[in-house]
C-alpha cells in the first residue's frame, strides 16, 4: 500500500505558482527528506498533505483514501478521519502554552475518545519516556528549552498513533547545540519504521537518516531518489550548485 500518493498537484498564490505539477509516491517506512532553497515550495507541499494549505488542482491520497481529488476536498468530518492517520511537527513547536506537558499530550486523544483516561495517562508517560522527558511531565512549556519543547511536540503528535509523521523544519528554530536531541528522536522513529517526511536544511542528517531525498526548486520536483543519487551523483546543475554551497 502506498502511504501517500500525490498526482499533478498545483497551487498558486495569485500569479505566483508555488507547486507545479507535483507527483510523489510514499511507501510504508519511507523516510523522505525534502530539500531545496527557501521559497522552493517544500513547506507548502508538506502542509498541503495535511490540509493546512488548500491546493488548486491534482489529487492527494492518504493510505489510498482521497483527501483531495482534482482540487475538491471531502467533508470536514471525512477529512478529520483521513488526517487522523498523520501527525505533524512544526518549526515553532506550537505547544499549547496554557497547558502543562501532560495536558498537551492528552488533550487530543481525550477529545477524540481514543482510550480511557488511565490508559492515556500510561501512554503519555510511555511516550514521554521515549523522547527522554518523563521528568518534565508536569512542567509548563515556557519552562522548557527549545529542544525539549520540540521533543514534547513530537510526543504529542505520537499520542494520536499516526502512521505517517510530517516534520516542517523541526530544528530550524533551535540553537545548534540542541538540534542533536531532536534529530535523535527522529532517528529512533525511523528505526521503528515510521513513515516520515521531513523538510529540513540538515543535509548531513538527511543523508544518513533518510532513504529518499526529494529535491524541490521553484515549485517543481527536481529530483527524487536515494541520498547517493541526489546528493552525491546528481548531474543536475541546480542541485549540484545547491549541495556545493551547503557542504
Amino acid at each position, binding site marked *: 500500500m502506498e502511504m501517500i500518493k500525490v498526482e499533478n498537484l498545483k497551487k498558486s498564490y495569485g500569479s505566483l505558482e508555488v507547486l507545479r505539477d507535483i507527483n510523489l509516491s510514499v511507501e510504508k517506512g519511507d523516510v523522505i527528506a525534502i530539500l531545496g532553497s527557501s521559497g522552493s515550495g517544500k513547506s507548502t507541499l508538506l502542509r498541503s498533505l495535511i490540509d493546512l494549505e488548500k491546493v488548486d488542482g491534482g489529487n492527494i491520497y492518504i493510505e489510498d483514501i482521497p483527501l483531495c481529488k482534482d482540487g475538491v476536498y471531502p467533508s470536514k468530518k471525512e477529512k478529520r478521519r483521513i*488526517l487522523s492517520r*498523520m501527525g505533524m511537527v512544526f518549526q*515553532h513547536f*506550537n505547544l*499549547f502554552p496554557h497547558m502543562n506537558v501532560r495536558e498537551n499530550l492528552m488533550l*487530543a486523544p481525550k*477529545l477524540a475518545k481514543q482510550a480511557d483516561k488511565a490508559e492515556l495517562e500510561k501512554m503519555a508517560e510511555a511516550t514521554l519516556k521515549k523522547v527522554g522527558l518523563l521528568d518534565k511531565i508536569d512542567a509548563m*512549556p515556557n519552562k522548557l528549552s527549545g529542544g525539549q519543547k520540540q521533543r514534547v511536540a513530537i510526543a*504529542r*503528535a505520537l499520542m494520536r498513533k499516526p502512521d505517517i509523521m510530517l516534520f516542517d523544519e523541526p530544528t530550524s528554530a533551535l540553537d545548534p547545540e540542541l538540534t542533536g536531541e531532536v534529530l535523535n528522536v527522529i532517528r529512533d522513529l525511523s528505526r521503528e519504521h515510521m513513515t516520515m517526511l521531513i523538510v529540513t536544511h540538515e543535509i548531513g542528517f538527511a543523508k544518513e537518516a533518510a532513504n529518499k531525498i526529494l529535491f524541490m526548486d521553484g515549485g517543481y520536483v527536481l529530483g527524487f531518489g536515494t541520498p547517493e543519487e541526489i546528493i552525491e551523483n546528481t548531474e543536475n546543475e541546480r542541485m549540484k550548485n545547491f549541495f556545493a554551497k551547503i557542504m
Partner: protein
Amino acid sequence: MTLSQWIPQMGEGCLLTLKLFFVTIVFSMPLGLCLTFLYTSKSAVLNKIVGFYILIMRGTPLLLQIFFVYFGLPYTPFIGKYLTISDRFTAGAIAFILNYAAYFAEIFRGGLLSVDVGQYEAAKVLGLTESQTRFKIILPQMFRIALPVVSNEAIILIKDTALITAIGLSDLLKVTKTIVNKTTNISAFVVAAFFYLIMSYVLTLVFKALEKKFSF
C-alpha cells in the same frame, strides 16, 4: 450631622456603586464576547453591524447613552411606551452593559488576534474540531492576553459608575454630594475619594492575582 451618621449613608451609596459595577461586569463581558464572535465571523453583514454598534457605543458619551435609555426611549415614535424603563437602576445598568460590551468586544478581539496562528494549526493537525479548538485552545489564551486590559477597563468602570448620579440614583457620589451640602464641609468628598480608591485598589489586587494564576 456627624461622621457616625454619614459614614453608614456613604456605605449604602457604596453598595449601590458596587451593585452597578458587578451587574455591568457580569453581563457586559459575555455580551462583549458574543459581539467578538460576530465581529470576527465569516459573515460580512454581521461584521459591519457589530462594527457600527461599536462605533456608536464608543463614539458617544456614556452619559448621553444613560439619558437616552432612561429619558429618551419613552419618546420613541409609536413604540415608545414599550421601551419605557421606569426603574432607574435597570435603565442605568442597561446603558452601562451596552456601552461596556462594546469595549470588551474590542478588547477580546485584540486578544484573539494575538493568539498565534500556529495554535490553530496545531489543534487542526491533532484532529480537534473547530469548537474544541475555540474553547480549549484559543479562548483560554485570549483571556490571558486580554486580562491586563480587562483589569484597566474594570478600574475605569468602578469610577464611571458615578455617572449614574445623573438619573437620580443614590450611589456613593450622590450621597456624598448631599452630605457636603448639609454639612457645608468638604470632608465627605475626601472620604468618598478614599472609598473609590479602596475599591480600585482591591480590583487591582484581584486582577494581579488572576494574572499570576493564569500566567504561562
